[in-house]
């Protein structure tokens, strides 16, 4: 369950208080801070020296303390959750890392940390670029005050401009933003913003937040923290994003699963008892909701995209194998109600997948609705004593409930 990728979570971001809330929808995969800093550093963004290391056996950095130890988890609010610790005594590295390893930050275990040089004697300023889904534009935000309490600035201290997703429009917006800030802050926002705009466009980002940017009295600056959200749908034309999944698959397990198998499967409860083989995210979520409310424990979310299986049982086999890994699995519910899928073909594929994964021994309740229903029923009916066909979803869930009680 380690290193699950996730979506950008907004509750620690600045947007709650601003007048026009961004309508984000699904934003992106949140790239871990270390990886985001590496991507931006390659584009000329100054960032503190740092390295990524397993929390269980932290490597001593080749630069002097004080260091900042930062939990690498794909959610915001690390600082407030105790996931960022400043360390001045190099001898206490392992001990401090231990302290971080005990944390779960919004459900995410801490498996890796970034150890970086501490920056002192600097003020904190803020720059953010974020997709505004409703308008199809990008909102650029900047503030002369940054840091963990940035939300307190929302509404007053944060300036914002909207721009089309192209260099000319975004640079013009950045210029206006910088001009609205105090003179000692504007040059750093301009310089950091130019790199951020180019990175945002190149990487097809949906979020890029520099918070804080450390600004020194001499005008020099460095990006203290970076939050970067990338669009999974752009993966096939984004070589750097693709390379990241190749080199650090354990950190982006869900995205790697989706890339390799072409569909979504997310373990929502490692102790769950019910395996789901379902198509459609909305109905899968609704099933999880209704089961959870009845006290049942679904193991996984699944949007197998049955319309895209192209006559191959591979997705079903991958799903059934994944379900075998559930230690407390009691039964499996297959629910396919699809506009696209031919159910006769689906039934054949399900049959083949079951043959390919004989280790899955639990009973299976199957509910199929749509084109080719009769043929599907003919194929599956009586095929196996452990498989039960039920045409109504509520009745199928009732059957699952009985199997879990038994």
């Amino acid at each position, binding site marked *: 369950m380690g290193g699950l990728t996730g979506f950008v979570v907004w509750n620690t971001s600045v947007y709650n208080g601003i007048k026009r809330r961004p309508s984000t929808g699904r934003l992106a995969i*949140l790239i871990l801070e270390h990886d985001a800093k590496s991507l931006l550093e390659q584009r000329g963004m100054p960032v503190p020296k740092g390295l990524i290391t397993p929390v269980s056996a932290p490597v001593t950095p080749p630069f002097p303390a004080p260091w900042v130890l930062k939990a690498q988890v794909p959610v915001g609010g690390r600082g407030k959750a105790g996931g960022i610790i400043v360390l001045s005594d190099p001898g206490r590295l392992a001990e401090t890392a231990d302290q971080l390893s005990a944390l779960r930050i919004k459900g995410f275990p801490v498996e890796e940390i970034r150890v970086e040089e501490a920056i002192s004697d600097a003020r904190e300023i803020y720059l953010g670029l974020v997709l505004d889904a409703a308008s199809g534009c990008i909102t650029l935000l900047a503030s002369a005050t940054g840091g963990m309490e940035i939300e307190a600035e929302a509404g007053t201290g944060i300036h914002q401009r909207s721009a089309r997703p192209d260099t000319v429009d975004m640079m013009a917006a950045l210029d206006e933003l910088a001009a609205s800030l105090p003179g000692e802050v504007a040059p750093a926002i301009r310089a950091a913003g130019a790199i951020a705009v180019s990175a945002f466009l190149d990487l097809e980002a949906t979020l890029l937040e520099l918070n804080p940017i450390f600004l020194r009295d001499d005008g020099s600056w460095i990006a203290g923290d970076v939050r970067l959200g990338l669009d999974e749908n752009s993966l096939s034309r984004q070589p750097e994003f693709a390379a990241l999944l190749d080199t650090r698959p354990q950190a982006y397990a869900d995205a790697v699963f989706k890339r390799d198998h072409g569909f979504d499967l997310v373990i929502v409860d490692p102790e769950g008892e019910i395996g789901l083989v379902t198509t459609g995210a909305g109905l899968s979520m609704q099933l999880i909701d209704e089961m959870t409310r009845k006290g049942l424990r679904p193991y996984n979310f699944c949007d197998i995209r049955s319309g895209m299986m192209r006559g191959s049982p591979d997705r079903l086999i991958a799903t059934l194998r994944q379900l075998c890994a559930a230690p407390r699995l009691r039964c499996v519910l297959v629910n396919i109600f*699809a506009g696209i899928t031919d159910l006769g073909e689906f039934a054949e594929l399900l049959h083949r997948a079951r043959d390919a994964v004989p280790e899955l021994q639990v009973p299976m309740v199957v509910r199929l609705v749509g084109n080719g229903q009769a043929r599907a029923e003919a194929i599956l009916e009586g095929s196996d004593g452990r498989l039960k066909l039920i045409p109504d979803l509520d009745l199928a869930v009732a059957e699952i409930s009985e199997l879990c009680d038994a």
Partner: protein
Amino acid sequence: MLERLIDHSAAPLRVMVQGATGRAARNHIARMVAAGTTIVAGVSPNAVPGDTVDGLPMFATPAEAVAATGADASLLMVPPLSVLPAAIAALDAGVDLIVTVTEGMPVRDAMHLLHASQAAGATWIGASSPGLVVPGRCKLGFLPDIALSPGPLAIWSKSGTLSYETGLRLVAAGLGQTAWIGVGGDPVKGTRFADLVPAFRDHAPTQAVVVVGEIGGTEEEDLAEALLETPIGKPVYAILAGAAAPEGKTMGHAGAIVSGGKGSLASKISELEAAGVAVFRSLAPMVETITADMKGKTP
């Protein structure tokens, strides 16, 4: 365009299908024609003049298809990275409506298409729409025939499959649709729930609206705002999925994210209820309530 789409007395849409040669597309074209859709052309880059697929004349470009057939709407069934260029070609050819059913369109492409469709004055339904249906008039996309029937309800949905289940149960209860619009679950889209309010406010045959939403984004909240500003004058029911969705985990379908305050289920429920919408978290009670409310109203 939405007004014309749902008005049975208006001229039927003349539809072209881009990417009409794939197995899935041909299968669905047959179902769409059976549902009453006037499909006049197919577009495939390799087509040469005189080509037909299942009797449908094929063209290499949308411009040629429009010139030859007067197509004014396009259904795109092309791969994710081809949606933007294919849709731009359709807009350039002058169609008034594009429906894109492909899943996985990059967000950046969707942003460009949103601006292009607005500049062209055209309506875009998508990205990743399961399609739209006006029973007895037309069907574009995948919505399953078993859940379609003429009736008094409008269904607006972000989620495909959850709306199928909703539609099926309502039809089983005797309640079909005036129209069913799948706006799609992606964050950036051509038509949002709130954009549907004006066309359906003035649509007498629609007696109630059923909204199928889910966590993520602020579309439900924006709908609530639109309903408060200009009441729609008919009951609105909503089912929202994602109560048990863990924060910060991938739920696959675009839109499925718990995004702090706004976008959460709690925020959607409170804002929709404040706008007079009856919000449900389970299907069975919603179907029961709608059935009871509609009793005696249905002609």
